[in-house]
């Protein structure tokens, strides 16, 4: 169940995993913390990494993806699926919030008709979680029943225990990674205690709080109140940052593109905050900004609970950190419940 590893052994471990899988780690490029294929050496991210700007969902739902290619020949059209690479990937250092977010996307993409682009990648992906030690002031995961050490959603969970990392084998997929890996030791009771303390310390740093007890009720009660939503949406500038950087937002667009070799149908990220997102030639149900803001908030905190009995938010705080006008979802949620109370 529990193992441990010293910091100095991590590079060796990643090297071993790199033989069979693409190992993705946090890195910094052009001033942006992002994910990249591990370069085979650098594990310094363990010291500085808090979370990435773009969430790791981009490795399961790429920003841009060719669905299939088409070509017109003598006998009409022929379609060709992209070669499935089938290569395994390990996302090393995923934060608990982002891992839980993938479990939320699973609800949509695995239900009914499976989206094989997502599902195949998801099946080939192993999530190695890294418990947070320094959450941002915009994080609010603890209000969503989670926290810096939450292991639900990951396959392996790594938690700082002194100068070592405690490894919890959460799933069978995780065990496959640790099986036969070198440099792993057995965790002692003291390591577990030390890890628990580290998580508790981190949890206390998550100071932003929301009360979600009556949020769904408040949203339903105020759903039709245009003025109320206009107020909430007033300063929003309708960019796509909050949705594109949201680890649970999955909306996409489908377009055809022609090139010299023929054409392709491509899937790319889309956002409910864009006015054209719902536009039909004759009608657009969400022309007004407040309707789009209402959709974003309601989708996560009313529609998700109605359909899946979970909220569609994990409290990673990216939408707060990166919003160019500091539109703060926690402020909105708290004002909602205050309104109902």
């Amino acid at each position, binding site marked *: 169940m529990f193992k441990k590893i010293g910091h100095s052994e991590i590079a060796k471990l990643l090297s071993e995993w790199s033989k069979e899988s693409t190992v993705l780690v946090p890195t910094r490029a052009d001033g942006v913390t992002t994910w990249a294929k591990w370069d085979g050496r650098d594990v310094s991210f363990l010291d500085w990494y808090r979370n990435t700007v773009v969430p790791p969902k981009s490795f399961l739902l790429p920003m841009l993806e060719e669905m299939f290619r088409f070509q017109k020949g003598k006998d009409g059209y022929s379609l060709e699926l992209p070669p499935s690479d089938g290569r395994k990937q390990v996302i090393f250092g995923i934060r608990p919030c982002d891992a839980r977010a993938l479990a939320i996307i699973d609800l949509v993409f695995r239900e009914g008709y499976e989206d094989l682009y997502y599902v195949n990648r998801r099946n080939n992906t192993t999530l190695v979680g890294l418990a947070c030690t320094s959450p941002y002031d915009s994080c609010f995961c603890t209000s969503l029943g989670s926290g810096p050490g939450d292991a639900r959603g990951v396959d392996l969970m790594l938690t700082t225990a002194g100068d070592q990392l405690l490894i919890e084998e959460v799933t069978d997929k995780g065990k496959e990674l640790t099986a036969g890996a070198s440099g792993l030791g057995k965790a002692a009771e003291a390591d577990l205690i030390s890890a628990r303390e580290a998580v508790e310390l981190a949890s206390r740093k998550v100071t932003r709080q929301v009360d979600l007890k009556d949020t769904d009720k408040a949203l339903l009660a105020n759903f039709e109140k245009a003025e109320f939503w206009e107020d909430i949406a007033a300063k929003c500038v309708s960019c796509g940052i909050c949705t594109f950087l949201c680890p649970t937002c999955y909306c996409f667009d489908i377009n055809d593109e022609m090139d010299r070799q023929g054409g392709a149908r491509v899937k790319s990220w889309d956002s409910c905050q864009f006015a054209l*997102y719902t536009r039909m030639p004759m009608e657009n149900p969400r022309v007004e900004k407040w309707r789009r803001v209402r959709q974003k908030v309601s989708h996560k905190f009313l529609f998700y609970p109605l359909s899946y009995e979970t909220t569609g938010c994990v409290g990673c705080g990216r939408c707060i950190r990166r919003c160019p006008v500091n539109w703060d979802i926690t402020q909105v949620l708290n004002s909602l419940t205050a309104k109902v109370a």
Partner: protein
Amino acid sequence: MTIADTSQRPRFFARGNVYLPHIVVIEKVIEETPGVRTFHFNFKDERLREEFAFQSGQFAEYSIFGVGEAPFCISSSPTRRDHMEFALQRVGKVTNALHRLGVGAEIGFRGPYGNSFPLDFLAGKNLVFIGGGIGLAPLRSLIWNVIDNREKYERIDIIYGARSPADLCFKYDLETWGKDSSVNMVTTVDRGDKDWTGKVGFVPAITEQVAPSAKNAVAIVCGPPVMIRFTFPVLAKLGFTPEQMITTLEKRMKCGIGKCGRCNIGNLYVCRDGPVFSYAQIKSFISSEY
């Protein structure tokens, strides 16, 4: 049964990947109005012609390779399976391109998607079909279905309107139904011309005039959103309960299978949970989301 119960409906049989369309061939093009055309089509693959099944009310994603995909209902009836039909108004990039196609052209087709009209629920009832403009397309599939099984249903009223006589779609069907003594057909236009002898007035107003009885009846409404919005209150006034009002909705449906996110009304996705809804299902969200 509820309308949202979709477990029994025919599903797209994709071989593996649900986004990969089948190839269908256009067999006939009918100019319904200056902006609306009906396309008759069939699968290129012989086997699919046999195996393919759908129900009235279901829709599909049609695509022109290199231009894009758009959703339209299957406007023909599953009781008449020598070919299938869809009808569309020329309004945007994909529909413009579709209107340029002629007989023999190949397009992509994936479907059928969505739920369908609840035939079991409709059996033994008086049916009131209320359609506007191209909104007759999905109703038409059901109307033919019902007429081909006429003994299963009671009284049939059809109220159909368009902006002008020239904008009436499926005139050949309107004529046939008008002559059918087992159907009460009312056609109206917003504005008539010198040859027009039928009714003049908006569909909701004409519905109020025709005043179909709500007793043992179900109203099935489809048309432009503004027509739907004004027809429901009229029906309510006539005594129809929200469960007795059924509509089929159109939204921007890119994926057709509840993934891409844009066609929701509340927590329901038109493509996944619809397009057929009872008013009872959507009334808490409809006034501002549709």
